[in-house]
Structures are given as C-alpha cells and as structure tokens.
C-alpha cells in the first residue's frame, strides 16, 4: 500500500478531478442531484464508499490508517459522505456472519450505493425489550412465510430490502427462537404506512407483513441463532455516531459558537450572558472529550490494552451532547427558534426548530439512553442484577 503521505496526495488530486464544486458544502439535504450522483459513482468505482471492505466485495481494501486518511481528505473539502443502513450496519455484520455466497450477493450492491436497506427490528410490543418480538416466519419449502408487524422502521417507504428479526421457533425461550433474515420490500405481502414525526417529517413507517416471502438461504447466521447477529448489528449502530464530533449536523452552515455569539452578543470580548457562556464552554468541552474518549478506546483496543466496551457510553453521551447543542442554540435564538413555517423567520431559524425536534430521537433510537445505562451497569461494570 502507498505511504500515507503519498496516498493523501493521490486522494487530493483525485478529489480535484471528480468532485463538482457545488458539492463542497457538507452533508446537506438539498444537494444538486446530478452532481451527487456523479460523486457517488466516482466513489463507488474505487470502492471508497466502503473503503475498508475487501475489494472482492466491492470495497476499497484499505487498512485503518488509509481509510482514516481518505475520510479526513473527504471531510476537509466538505464533500458529502455516503453512509446508509447497508454500509454502516448490515455490511459489517455480513462481513462477520455471512457465508461467502451471501457476502458476494449482498455486499457489492451496498458498496455501490445501489440498494437501499431498512432495519426491521422494533415492533409495537417490542421496543427496548426487543427480544420479545412476535413477527413469525414459517418455513414452506425453500421459503419462509412472514406475518406480523414492524414499527418505527426508518426509510421503509424508500427501501428495496429489509433486514428483519423474525421468530422462527415460538416454543424456544425468547432469545433462542429468533432469526435474522433478509427479504425484498417490493412484494405483495409487504405494506408500508409512513408515520409523521414531531419534526413534521415522515422518515419512519409501520410495516405490515401478510404472507411476505423470504428465501430460506437468506437467513444470516444460524436459524434460531439470530439474536447474536442482531446484537452485533446494534453495536455497529451505536458506534456509527458515537464517535462523531458534534457540529450541528444537517444543513446548518453555522457553528454553535457563531450562533451564540451573534444572538447573545459580546461585551469586552465576552458573551454578554455569563450563564450561556458557561453552557457553551461546557458544550464544546463535552464534544471534545467525547471524541477523545472514542479515539482512546480505539487506541487501547489496537494496543491490546484492557479495552472496555465503550459503545454504549459513546452512544449515550453522544445523544446527550447532540441534544444539548440544539438546546443551547434554541436558548440563544429565543422565540425566533420557535417558528414552524411561513414568513417571519429566516430559513436557518426554521431549520433550527426542526433540528431541535429531530434530535430528540437520538436518545431513543438504537437503544434508549436508559437502556444504554442498563448495558453499562450490566456488561461493563458487571454489577449483578
């Protein structure tokens, strides 16, 4: 592999060649479609949507250092990043639990960003207590027939395929009768009904299965052994964002510091409100400490030192950090942060209202904050229950 420095230079000149100017604005929702499509194709061609996957599955075959260097270069020019249920959750899980055949079938389309996946875990009666799920799958010949309901399924209305937890042995104890199975969404037995969220969007749905069909060969891991696979995928889900620094995600161009400075004002170089000043400093320090902690955990693991499972802690602190970032921005904006629609508000202010609402979900999805604390107490601190 090329030296890191040489590799960085290569990436830089490649970016200059393929990245359209109108994309250098970060991960925004309103990116020009054609430019975005070209960028994704360029990434896919080199396997750089999933740079650390092996090349035979469509990845870039890069080691950790080169992957990090690539990501840093892409971030430095504020190019949009491509990440999905497929790249960040299902892919890594398949790499570990899939058969060779399954990997060759499912991974390359993910690495080319061609197939959209959704996550069929939660049900109306099975949220935090996920293992009590009731959706049934019964084997008929070489197919499973699936009946039941999922809920809160993000992106279900746009998804091509679902990775789904189903009960294949209703007589076994609750963790032992579950299988992890893949099947297409576009088929007669699947009905999707979007739900409207408090931020006004309709990102997640109820999904009804009425005789939906899955190929028996598309069970990942052993039949009735899906719980282990499911849990590993949750670890990937929790680590997806746990490591990222804050930074008012989404379409926002301003940093939190910019907003607070502008709205609160400076006197003699200090924010005019000492209480908000304290909160802002605490917020910046929390974001920094979180990213240092995730980095340290990585370094510990690589050095073979006592690596504690820090995933739940990271998810928990990340969720709180993201939420309080919006809270501070809202406090700075005051009633101008309460606009819902129409005239009287700037776009950035309306976006703020929505972002504040959207981020309330961060302490709920992927295991609620309370569940993360349960996991830390039990698995990390090993306090008997």
């Amino acid at each position, binding site marked *: 592999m090329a030296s890191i420095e040489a590799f960085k230079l290569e990436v830089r000149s490649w970016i200059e060649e393929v990245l359209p100017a109108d994309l250098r604005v970060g991960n925004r929702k309103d990116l020009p479609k054609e430019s975005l499509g070209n960028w994704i194709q360029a990434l896919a061609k080199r396997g750089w949507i999933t740079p650390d996957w092996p090349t035979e599955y469509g990845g870039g075959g890069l080691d950790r250092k080169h992957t990090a260097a690539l990501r840093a270069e892409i971030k430095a020019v504020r190019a949009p990043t491509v990440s999905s249920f497929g790249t960040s959750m299902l892919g890594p899980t398949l790499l570990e639990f899939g058969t060779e055949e399954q990997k060759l079938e499912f991974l390359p389309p993910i690495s080319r960003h061609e197939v959209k996946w959704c996550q069929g875990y939660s049900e109306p009666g099975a949220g935090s207590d996920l293992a009590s799920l009731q959706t049934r799958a019964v084997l008929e010949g070489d197919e499973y027939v699936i009946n039941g309901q999922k809920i809160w399924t993000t992106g279900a209305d746009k998804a091509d395929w679902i990775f789904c937890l189903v009960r294949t042995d209703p007589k076994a104890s609750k963790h032992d009768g579950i299988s992890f199975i893949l099947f297409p969404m576009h088929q007669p037995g699947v009905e999707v009904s979007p739900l409207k969220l408090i931020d006004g969007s309709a990102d997640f749905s109820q999904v009804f299965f009425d005789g939906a069909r899955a190929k028996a060969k598309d069970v990942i891991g052993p039949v009735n052994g899906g719980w282990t696979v499911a849990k590993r995928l949750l670890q990937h889900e929790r680590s997806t964002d746990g490591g990222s620094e804050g930074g008012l995600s989404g379409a926002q161009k301003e940093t939190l510091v910019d907003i607070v400075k502008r709205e609160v004002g400076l006197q003699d170089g200090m924010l005019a409100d000492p209480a908000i000043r304290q909160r802002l400093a605490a917020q910046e320090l929390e974001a920094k400490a979180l990213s240092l902690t995730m980095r340290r955990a990585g370094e510990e693991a690589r050095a073979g030192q006592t690596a504690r499972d820090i995933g739940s802690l990271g998810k928990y602190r990340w969720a709180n950090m993201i939420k309080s970032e919006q809270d501070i921005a809202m406090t700075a904006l005051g009633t101008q942060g309460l606009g819902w629609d129409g005239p009287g508000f700037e776009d950035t202010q309306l976006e703020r209202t929505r972002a504040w609402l959207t981020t309330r979900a961060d302490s709920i999805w992927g295991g609620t904050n309370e569940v993360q604390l349960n996991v830390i*107490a039990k698995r990390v601190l090993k*306090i008997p229950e």
Partner: protein
Amino acid sequence: MGLILSEDQLILRDMAKSFCDEKSPVERMRTLRDTRDAVGFSRELWKEMGELGWIGILFPEAVGGAEMGYGELGVVLAECGRVLAPEPFISTVLLGGNAVLLGGSEPLRKDLLPGVCSGDRILALAFQERGRFAPYAVETAATRDGSGYRIRGEKQFVLDGHVADQIVTVARTAGSAGDRDGLTLFVIDADAPGVSALRTEMVDGRNAARITFDNAVVDAARVLGEVDGGADILDPVFDRATIGLCSEMLGSFEEAFERTLEYLKTREQFGVKIGTFQGLRHRAAQMFGELEFARSVVYDAQSSIDDGREDVAECASGAKARCSDVANLIGGEAVQMHGGIGMTDEEEIGLFFKRLKAAEFTLGDAIYHRNRYASLRGY
C-alpha cells in the same frame, strides 16, 4: 504520549502502585492527620521518591532530574491520588519547581533544583490572597529598595508553606489588583526576617499556610522571569500544575469509584445486593462515564505539554473544569451510596470525598476554568 499509556509508562505505573500500596496505604495519611504531624507528610518517603527519580521526572538531567514528561509524572501522581499520599508534589514540583524551571536564571536553577530533585528541598508558591482562585488579584506589594525589594502582604492557602525552604512569592511591582501586568515572582527564603508562616489545617488533612511578609527583603537576583512580567511565568506554571493536579485527581476518582462499585456489589438491603436497584445502577454508569471522560481529557492535557502543542492552556482549563465537576459527582455519590457508614470518619471513603473537594477548589474550580476556556476560545 498519546491517549494511552506506553509500555514504559505501564511499568512505571505498576512500580508506583506497589510502592504506594506497600509504603503508603490510606491509613498512613490518616495517622499523619490524627497525630497532627508537624510536617504533614513523610520526609523519609519523599526522599525515597526522590531516589526513585519521581520527584525529578520533569527536571533536566543537569540538575538531577530525569527529563521525562507529564505522561510519566501523571502516572506517579495518579497512584499517589489512589492512596491519598500527601507528599508535596504540587507545592514543590508543580508550582514552586516549575516556577524556578520556567523563570529562574541559570544560577538560581542550579542553586535550587538539585535539592528539589533529591527530596531535600521543599518549595511553595505563594499566590492566593482570597478564597476564590483569581491569579492576578494580587495586592501584596514589592517596592524597590537598594539592590533588592521589600515585600509586604499576606498570602493564604500556600500549600506546604509552613515547611517550605523557599517561598516563591507573587507580588505586585506595578498596576493594581486584577491587572495581569505588573506582577513579579520572587524566591524568598522562609527563614528570612519579616517572613512568618501560620499553618492552616485543611479539611483534606493536608497542609497549607498563611504567610505574612512584613517588609521582608529579597535580592533582585532572586527574581524569576521579568520584573512586572511575572504573569508570563505564572500562566504556564498554573497550566502545568493544574494538569498535574488533574492527574492526581484521576487516581482518586478511580479508587473512590472502585470502592463504591464494590460496595454496590456486596452490601445487601431488602434481601438483595443494593447494586440491583436500577436507580443506583444508572448512577454508577454515569460515574463510570465521567471517569472515562476525565481520563481522556487528562491524558490529552498531559500530552499537550509533552508534545509541545499550542493548546496547553485550553487543555488545562478543559481538564480542570471537568475534573472539578467529576470530583463533586464521584466524591458525593461515593459517600451517598455508602449510606450511614459513608458519613463516619472511620470509613475511608470520606477521606476521598474531602480530598476531592479540596482538589476541586485548588487552582480554580469548574466555573473559573469554563470562563477561562471561553476567553481562550474568543467568547
């Protein structure tokens, strides 16, 4: 260092750990306190630490030091924090020693630092004049007198000030209280005429003193750094000392947390271990999180000095802001989760609680350091 301990640092940690466990269990600190020991720490143990090279970790080889970094010193300090060892690292190494190292002329360094490294010489830094940490709020006055200066004023919370051989004193040569300019640092012999020390016993069993300067005379050659420019030395000294203090606090956090966790796993009420109660489990998880975050920022702050980074001040204030809050959280929760026994003098957890409160206020609390961080960040 990076964010993890190197092989060498791990070895040093194990050495320091067995040394502290063997020679300095928490009981020793209690005895020093209960007997109102005149020194307040053990001079013999301090010298042993000198022989092991720990006192001199930061100092150049030329003056008898080991020329290593805050990563190494932090490992030793954390182990001291685990057993609440009251030996004078903060006064002699982090404050007084650093002031001489960063601001002293060549002759002054040669004169003072070898004794520091061997454990024979105790130094103190006299800066504070009121309860809340405010580094430039100095009224103690130094007025020119012939080839030297006359010092008048009173200092408080001078760590180990009652046993120090030299007291590095912050005095005002120009301007008025609160100004950053106009401060000067003087190395004053503790037995010089006009210097008197009143030992003050603190809640954590450690020593501090009120030092009165009543026209004490000091030679101009005993100035550290520039006249009127003392803050240029003082700022980095405080940053370094703050980071070192945080390393010590980290060790106390670990020990107080581990003891509390153990208690949750053994104490029974309502026929079950109290650790089965979710209210306590969640709070234990919170403490764990704070401890992990504190470790990250302390290690990062240590490396900011060792790697010669530009952001030492931000790291120091960031680390102390967090460690001060964590001191409150872990110290308070440790006592609370021990119930009645946590309130007794006999149970050692209370000693950790008290030390952590003192450490919280030493060199600035969380509010001070968040304000300073905000200033450094331009808001």
